[in-house]
């Protein structure tokens, strides 16, 4: 009898423990858009990608779009951010509002003098960690060429455990054409940094074949 009571108690305890806080199943997406120099011309493509991402996101997901400029480790660089409501109808309205904000940004975007991608990634990881989403994805729409102002320290390890980083439309610079190793090294360097930080790395240059496989 005593054994039976102990077994029942253990089973009930295990059952109640299993009914605790369920793991988060939503997705957080942070998109960094490079606005430096000539890359500003690519902003229309970035806008299309944002629209596609918006269409794929579901209620209770989080999405933020930030520009990459001189010092990107700042909330001021966030163009639009939204944690969608868990009701589909409200989430749809929020998506339209989000799109309007991005449209406004695209119209008024000005080329930045420097490119602080690392700062942007740090800001993205901070934002998504704070949101506590189940899946965390960072899109980097850039040529991945960092150009930091003097005095900015960005040679710091990234903490990207559980993050999936996708570099989009990594265009080749003129210097890459002269020495393609620069392009390769740039990609390898970013991959190393992301993977050392615990994240996973992916490069997608053919945007027409971009697949959102995070679901």
């Amino acid at each position: 009898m005593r054994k039976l009571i102990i077994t029942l108690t253990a089973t009930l305890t295990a059952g109640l423990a299993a009914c605790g806080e369920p793991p988060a199943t939503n997705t957080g997406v942070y998109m960094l858009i490079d606005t430096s120099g000539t890359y500003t011309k690519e902003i229309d493509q970035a806008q299309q990608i944002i629209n596609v991402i918006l269409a794929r996101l579901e209620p209770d997901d989080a999405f933020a779009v930030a520009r990459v400029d001189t010092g990107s480790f700042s909330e001021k660089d966030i163009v639009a951010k939204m944690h969608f409501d868990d009701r589909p109808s409200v989430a749809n309205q929020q998506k339209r509002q989000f799109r309007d904000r991005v449209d406004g940004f695209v119209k008024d975007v000005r080329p930045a003098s420097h490119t602080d991608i690392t700062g942007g990634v740090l800001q993205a990881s901070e934002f998504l960690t704070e949101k506590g989403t189940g899946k965390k994805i960072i899109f980097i729409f850039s040529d991945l060429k960092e150009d930091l102002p003097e005095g900015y320290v960005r040679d710091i390890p990234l903490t990207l455990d559980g993050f999936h980083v996708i570099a989009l439309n990594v265009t080749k610079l003129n210097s890459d054409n002269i020495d393609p190793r620069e392009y390769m090294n740039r990609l390898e360097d970013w991959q190393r940094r992301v993977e050392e930080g615990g994240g996973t790395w992916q490069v997608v240059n053919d945007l027409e074949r971009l697949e959102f496989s995070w679901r």
Partner: protein
Amino acid sequence: MSDFSLFSGGIAGTAALAAGIVMALYMARAPIQNVILEACQAIAGGLRFASRTLVSVRTRLVQRNREVLLSAGREAAARMVEREYERFADKVHRDLGDYPTLHQELAGHATRLDEDYAKSASNPPAPPGWADAVEAVAAVPDKAEPVLRQVLESIHGSFKKAGEEANKAYREDCRMRHKHLHDMAPSWRESVRLLGQVKTRVETLNERAAVVDESMRKFEEIHEDTDQAAMALQSSALVQFFIAGLVLLVATGGAVVNFHLIARPMSEMVGGNTYIGSFKTADIAALVIILVELSMGLFLMECLRITSLFPVIASLADKVRTRLAIVSFTLLLSLASVEAGLAYMRELLLQDELATAAVLRGEVAQEASFLWITTAAQMGMGFILPFALTFIAIPLETFIHSMRAVLGWGASGVLMTMAFTLRILARTFDEGGKVFAQLYDVAIFAPLWAEKRFLDVRKEMKASPGAREMLEETEARLSGQKAA
């Protein structure tokens, strides 16, 4: 040279070892063969015992199945007989309940017919009384006398006049008779119609009585526990199992459609991205609504006494049962209305999502003019499907009842197969032991052959007479001759 000697030494050693083993096997032949045979027989015995046990269990199971089947059949047949009697009583009440009125009507018609018949009887006019006087006058010899002639003419005129009057009266009488006969015709027709009605009703009752007789015959057959009844019930249960299973599959399809109608809009109520385990909360909520609807449908059917899955409900007082039926129906109606609303919301959400997707693509959302049809169809399905799923209770009951019998046959078949397999294994062990014993003898054939040879020789030696025996024989023969 040394290699050769080693090789030859190896062969010799191996031969010696083989010979030693063979000799050892030869010496241990009897106990080892005993062990093999005994072990195999023991295993075979165990398997046979297990097989017999399984056959016995199967026999009990078959018996139990038969009892359960007959019991269920008896119950069903009793219910059927009861229902047939109720129908028969209803029929009698409906068809023959107004028989006294009908009888009275027929009697009235008969009376009227009788009266009319009586009235239509022929009444011939009575002959005039003075005919005798006329005969007397006619007998006068001198008929040429003027007075007589005048009298006769007067009589002739009177006769003629009286004949005309009588003819007229007779015609009037005939007319009246015809009129009475004519008046009888409707009564005849009505009587014939009423009698035809009675005939039809009686024939219908006869047919119904034949059905009752058939139900009663089946009930008696089942009650007598005949093999024929058991076989009929078995095949009936199997057919019912498959038919009910098929209907349940169709109903499951309906439930799935119903689920998809309400799962999407449910996310508006319970959130679109919350999970319980690995399932969306919205899906679980939709499933729960459908299951609750099914439960209400089951209760409703139970309260209406269409099914009998819950004895507790069946044993409730009629008043309570009626109340429970009303509550079940009200809940079902409410849930069906909720489903219709959710189906409408589903369409709205879909349109909203399409519009958002169009905006994100940079297009202008267009609204089709025929959308109201799909909206109305979805709402209709959302409202009707819960009621349609209510009827799932009937095949479900049949499925559950027939499943008991089908599972019993399945278990019986499995037991039979197992028993057969064990029997085969037992036989295999039996024969296998003997084969192993023979194979053992094959391995030690050389010493066995030598033993056989040795025994043969000894036997031959025992059979052929020796010198001593011959001398003794001769000596005995000689002493016999001397004595003679």
